[in-house]
């Protein structure tokens, strides 16, 4: 019997005392950016939209700000005995911003809509584990569903039991399902959405602590929902996400106290920690659930040898590059998993990720070396060239192997080349987690045939251990299995970890209580006016 532990909802980061409704919390303005899509939760998979959704929407679970552990939010409990059938009981006092109660059918209908292929939502793949997901997809030969509609429009794995109870059946055991349900895509949708999705896009209605006021080219405004009954109410009455064209402008505004918070600092200000003196006593460095790896091309015959891969990895001086090139905004990785998540094991990569020139040279000799020039492909629109140059130099100086950086015009081009398996040599790959679990850093990237497996990596042993983790009875046991799976990566090295991201955050002198969640995103609802 594995019941998700219900942590006492004490003051944890975003929670705490709510200021009396009636508007005494003041107003704040924070840096925002333009969302790529209308703010339908399951269609928002990028940062700009996510910033706003953190205040607009609530999900079944909420991640603890400090530990990333899941805490019950809209759910009263999520129970399972076999990791395959989950019974979700909802709290009965939670409402959407339009006043309607959040009921079981708001989840079931929303998830069916989100997963239904013809609706073409960006986050539809999140529902893949649920039984019947495949029935909602287009026939394989026809990605448009033009000739044939999907077999069904409701997943067989979702069933409403009563107003406040529903069940989820998954195709395979998924021991961390409850943890996944905190992601934006799993937000419930109000009845009005299904009547008129277009109207919803113009004015999103969630169940979060803040409700939507307006959105235009320069600002997105949300205000506190006085009817919010959850444990993480907002502190300020109004939050304005001001759209900035550049990092520098937002930074200048925060330093001058015209903007209350930004989570970007221009590179120039990172030099000698200038930003920490510009915003003395009002800055922090947030760890993010983002990791960068160097991937080996699956179509480069010479790189098939794991010994050569290990030699190259050991020739990269990670501490030096993170210090010199990234000015401390990255931390050298000792694992394929970001350090903020549940199940992260320090030092999982061992000596393979440790800079050791002598051993790297020895392994390189042993492997027979690499003929010609090793290339490292990065996209030119993400500021990757400096570290790529440094990495190449590190390899060149250690192994005497000629290494060159290839820069594609932009990320889209690089992604196209990765998808078409056109790249030789090495290329950069980054992963931003969806939910704070070690499993999210393994399954979507390294499982056989996974959507983001650009390395053609396929290991029966690895897949087996993933599965073993998914059927485990407790989360401790599951994490242990996934950590074993990670050890298989150490052996095969489809990619080598480089570093994980940290984010500089600064705020104005008018606010306090600026925190970041495990994703490295500012907890906007927790910010208080002085």
């Amino acid at each position: 019997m594995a019941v998700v532990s219900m942590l006492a909802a004490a003051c944890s980061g975003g929670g705490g005392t709510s200021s009396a409704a009636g508007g005494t919390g003041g107003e704040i303005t924070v840096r925002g950016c333009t969302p790529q899509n209308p703010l339908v939760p399951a269609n928002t998979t990028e940062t700009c939209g996510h910033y706003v959704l953190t205040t607009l929407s609530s999900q079944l679970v909420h991640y603890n700000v400090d530990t990333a552990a899941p805490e019950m939010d809209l759910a009263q409990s999520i129970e399972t005995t076999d990791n395959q059938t989950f019974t979700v009981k909802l709290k009965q006092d939670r409402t959407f911003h339009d006043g309607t109660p959040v009921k079981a059918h708001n989840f079931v209908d929303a998830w069916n809509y989100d997963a239904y292929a013809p609706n073409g939502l960006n986050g539809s793949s999140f529902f893949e584990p649920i039984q019947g997901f495949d029935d909602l997809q287009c026939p394989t030969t026809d990605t448009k569903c033009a000739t044939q509609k999907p077999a069904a429009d409701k997943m067989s794995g979702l069933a409403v039991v009563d107003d406040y109870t529903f069940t989820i059946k998954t195709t395979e055991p998924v021991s961390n399902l409850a943890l996944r349900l905190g992601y934006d895509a799993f937000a419930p949708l109000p009845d009005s959405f299904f009547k008129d999705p277009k109207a919803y896009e113009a004015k999103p209605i969630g169940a979060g602590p803040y409700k939507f006021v307006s959105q235009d080219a320069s600002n997105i405004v949300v205000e506190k929902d006085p009817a919010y009954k959850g444990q993480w109410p907002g502190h300020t009455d109004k939050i304005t996400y001001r759209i900035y064209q550049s990092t520098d402008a937002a930074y200048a505004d925060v330093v001058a106290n015209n903007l209350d918070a930004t989570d970007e600092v221009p590179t120039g200000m990172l030099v000698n920690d200038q930003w920490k003196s510009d915003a003395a006593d009002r800055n922090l460095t947030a760890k993010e659930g983002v990791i960068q790896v160097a991937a080996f091309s699956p179509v480069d015959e010479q790189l098939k040898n794991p010994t050569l891969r290990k030699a190259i990895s050991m020739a990269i001086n990670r501490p030096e590059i993170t210090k010199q090139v990234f000015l401390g905004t990255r931390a050298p990785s000792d694992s394929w998993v970001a350090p903020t998540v549940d199940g992260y094991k320090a030092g999982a990569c061992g000596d393979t990720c440790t800079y050791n020139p002598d051993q790297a040279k020895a392994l390189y000799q042993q492997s027979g070396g690499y003929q010609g020039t090793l290339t490292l492909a990065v996209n030119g629109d993400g500021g990757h060239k400096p570290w790529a140059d440094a990495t190449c130099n590190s390899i060149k100086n250690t192994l005497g192997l000629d290494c060159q950086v290839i820069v594609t015009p932009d990320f889209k081009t690089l992604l196209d080349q990765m998808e078409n398996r056109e790249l030789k040599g090495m290329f950069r790959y980054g992963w931003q987690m969806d939910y704070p679990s070690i499993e999210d850093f393994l399954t979507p990237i390294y499982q056989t045939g996974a959507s983001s497996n650009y390395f053609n990596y396929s290991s029966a042993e690895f897949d087996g251990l993933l599965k073993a983790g998914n059927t485990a009875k407790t989360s401790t046991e599951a994490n242990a299995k996934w950590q074993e799976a990670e050890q298989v990566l150490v052996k095969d090295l489809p990619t080598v970890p480089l570093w994980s991201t940290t984010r500089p955050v600064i705020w104005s002198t008018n606010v306090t209580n600026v925190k970041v969640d495990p994703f490295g995103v500012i907890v906007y609802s927790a910010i208080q006016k002085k």
Partner: protein
Amino acid sequence: MGTYIVRRLLQMIPVLIGSTFLIFLMVFALPGDPVAGRCGERACPEAYVAKFTQDYHLDKPVLVQYGYYVGKLVRGDLGTNFYGNSVLHELAVRFPTTLRLAVIAILFEIVVGIGAGVWAGMRRGRWPDTVVTIGSLLIISVPIFVIGALAQLIFGIKLGIFPVTSTSGTWWQLLLPGLVLGSVSVAYVARLTRTNLVENLRADYVRTAKAKGLGRGRSIGLHTLRNSLIPVVTYIGADFGALMGGAIVTERIFNINGIGSFIFRSISQRDGVSVVGAVVMLVFVYLLMNLLVDLLYGALDPRISHE
């Protein structure tokens, strides 16, 4: 005069069609898939790609896509961009901001640029001339992002005289960026005015006017300066068109939500519909400015007639 204007306006139609087509081809020829990269570091779900492709006709040949586009264009619809917003609306929201910014910059150019040019030209070879020459050289040689960032640091952050960034695009918020934006052109206008004035002051007709006993003010103001301003007006007209195209660098420094940053973002998003829409508008502004400049020629120099 009336027929001339009508003829010029009619000539705009083929230019507009030609330019939209070229821009459309260019955006289409950019490498990369507009859908890739819309889902962060991962591949997009197939269904999402399919819907997106269908909504924007991305699977059709470029000529067919262009056909769809022109079909909408003649109805005054600039299409819908990849964010699902009407391009016409997006431009309408940003246009006033960009226009205000351009007007500030142009006024700055006209008043300070022509003023400094006349001042230097009248005192050729003496200290005012040297001051204007060196000053304009300095401004031309410093890149605009340096001028912008410095102005923001000194007048915005340190002294607090001007707003650090623009939040809603009011005249007051755009004053400093407008001056920064106009600074390089001011230098050019000053030099252009000075050179032309110096040249014309040596012309025969000026000597004749002086010999006739015409006052200094009239001979210079009415005759010399009017003749000297023709190249300057041409420059300012073209510059106004360029400024309307948005000042990408200045807009980014001062966070101005204008046409420039919109085009920049749209290009990086492969958002062809937005780019073409914005460029159509810009071409139109350019053509209008050109017409205005040509009409001004007639006012400045009676020998140029459009009849």
